[in-house]
C-alpha cells in the first residue's frame, strides 16, 4: 500500500478563537480539520477559556507549504496576545490528494 507523507499541524487555542482560526485555515489552503476540546496550562497566566469553556485542539492535515503558512500566520496574528500553541509533524496517509498533496 502506497502512503504519502503530509504535515499534521496541531493547534491548541482558547475557545474564543474557534471561528477565526478555522476561517484562517480555510483561507490558507487546509481542506479539512478536526477539533477536540482540551484544558491546559502554559507559561501565560489565566486566559479567557480558563473559566468559561475549554480550549480547543485543532488538527489539520495539509501539504508542507500550507503547514508553513499556517505556522507563520499563527505566529504573527495570535502568538502575541492569545494563549495559542502550535506544532507540526510528518504523518503518512493513504490518499494524499485528499489533503492537497
Amino acid at each position, binding site marked *: 500500500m502506497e502512503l504519502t507523507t503530509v504535515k499534521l499541524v496541531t493547534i491548541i487555542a*482558547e475557545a*474564543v478563537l474557534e471561528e*477565526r482560526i478555522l476561517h484562517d485555515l480555510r483561507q490558507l489552503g487546509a481542506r479539512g480539520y478536526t477539533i477536540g476540546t482540551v484544558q491546559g496550562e502554559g507559561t501565560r*497566566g*489565566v*486566559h*479567557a477559556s*480558563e*473559566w*468559561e*469553556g*475549554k480550549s480547543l485542539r485543532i488538527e489539520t492535515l495539509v501539504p508542507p507549504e500550507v503547514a508553513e503558512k499556517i505556522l507563520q500566520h499563527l505566529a504573527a496574528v495570535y502568538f*502575541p*496576545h*492569545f494563549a495559542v500553541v502550535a506544532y507540526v509533524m510528518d504523518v503518512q496517509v493513504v490518499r494524499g490528494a485528499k489533503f492537497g498533496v
Partner: protein
Amino acid sequence: MTILELVQINLLSPMVLAFALGITATLLHSDLKLPDELYTTLSIYLLLAIGLKGGIALAETSLAVFWAPAVATLLLGIIIPVIAYGVARKIGKLNVADAAALAAHYGSVSAVTFAAAQTFLDTVGVRYEGFMPALVAILEVPAIVVALLIAQVAGAPQGGDWRKALRELLTSKSILLLVGGMIIGWLAGPRGGKEVAPVFVDLFKGALTFFLLELGMVAARRFRDLPSAGLFLLGFGIIMPIFNGLLGIWFGSISGLSLGGSTILGVLAASASYIAAPAAVRIALPQANPGFYLTAALGITFPFNLAIGLPLYYTIASWIVGGH
C-alpha cells in the same frame, strides 16, 4: 429589619451557602468538579427563565411606566464605564486596555447577581416591578460598547478586532437568550407561561443554588490571583460597585421605580459582567490582561455583592426611596 438582620437572612440563604460551599471545595482541593456542560446548561436556563418572566410581565406594563426606568438604565450604561475608566486610569494607573476592560465589565451587568437580588427581595418580602429583566437586557450591551470606544479613542495598541467584537456581542448567547426569552414570554403571555412554569419558575431557585455552587469554585480559583492583583484592584472591586449601586438606586428612585425596583437597579449597576463582557473584551482588547478583569469581576465583586451588597443596597434604597 436592621441591616445586620438582612445580612444574616441573606448569608443563611441556601444560595449564598452553596456559593460558600463551592469556595470551600476549591480551598480544600476537593475533587468536586461540576461538569462544564452543567454549568453551560444552567446558565442557558437562568438567562432564558429570567427573560421569559420579564417578557410576561412586560406584556402587562404600559410604556408610560416603563420609559423612564429604561432611559435611566441606558444612562447608567453610558456613565458608569466612563467613570470606571477614569478611576482605573487615574487612581489605578492602569494602561488603556486594562482600564477599558474593567470599564466594560463594571458597566455591564451580571444576570446571576440580578437573580440573587430577586430571590433576596422575595425572601425579605419586598415587591419589585416585573419588567426588571428588560432593564438587565438594556444595561448589558451599551457599557461594553462605550468602553471599547474609549479604548479606540484613547489609542489602545491595535491587535483586536472590535467591529467583530461588537457584532458578536449583539448576537452573544446572553443577549440572545435574555431578549429571546422576553419575546417568547411577551408573545406566549401568562397562559403559555403557565405551561412551562414547572421548569422555568418552580426550579429557578434550586437551579440558581446549583449554579452558585459552581461559581463559588470559579471565584475561589480567582482568589489565588488576588495577591498579584494588588491593593488597587481589591479596593476597586469593592468601592466601585458601592458607588455604582448608589448611582443605580438614585437613578431608579428618580425614574419612579419602587423600593424593590430601585434596589434591583442598584444591584444591576453594582454588578460586574462575567459572561458577555469577558468574551467581547477578549476579542476586541486581547492585550488586556484577563487575570485582571476576571479576578476583579469574579473573585472580588461577585462575592462581595452576593454576600454583603444585596442587603446593603436594599438598606440604602430604603433610606433614599423611603421605607416600605
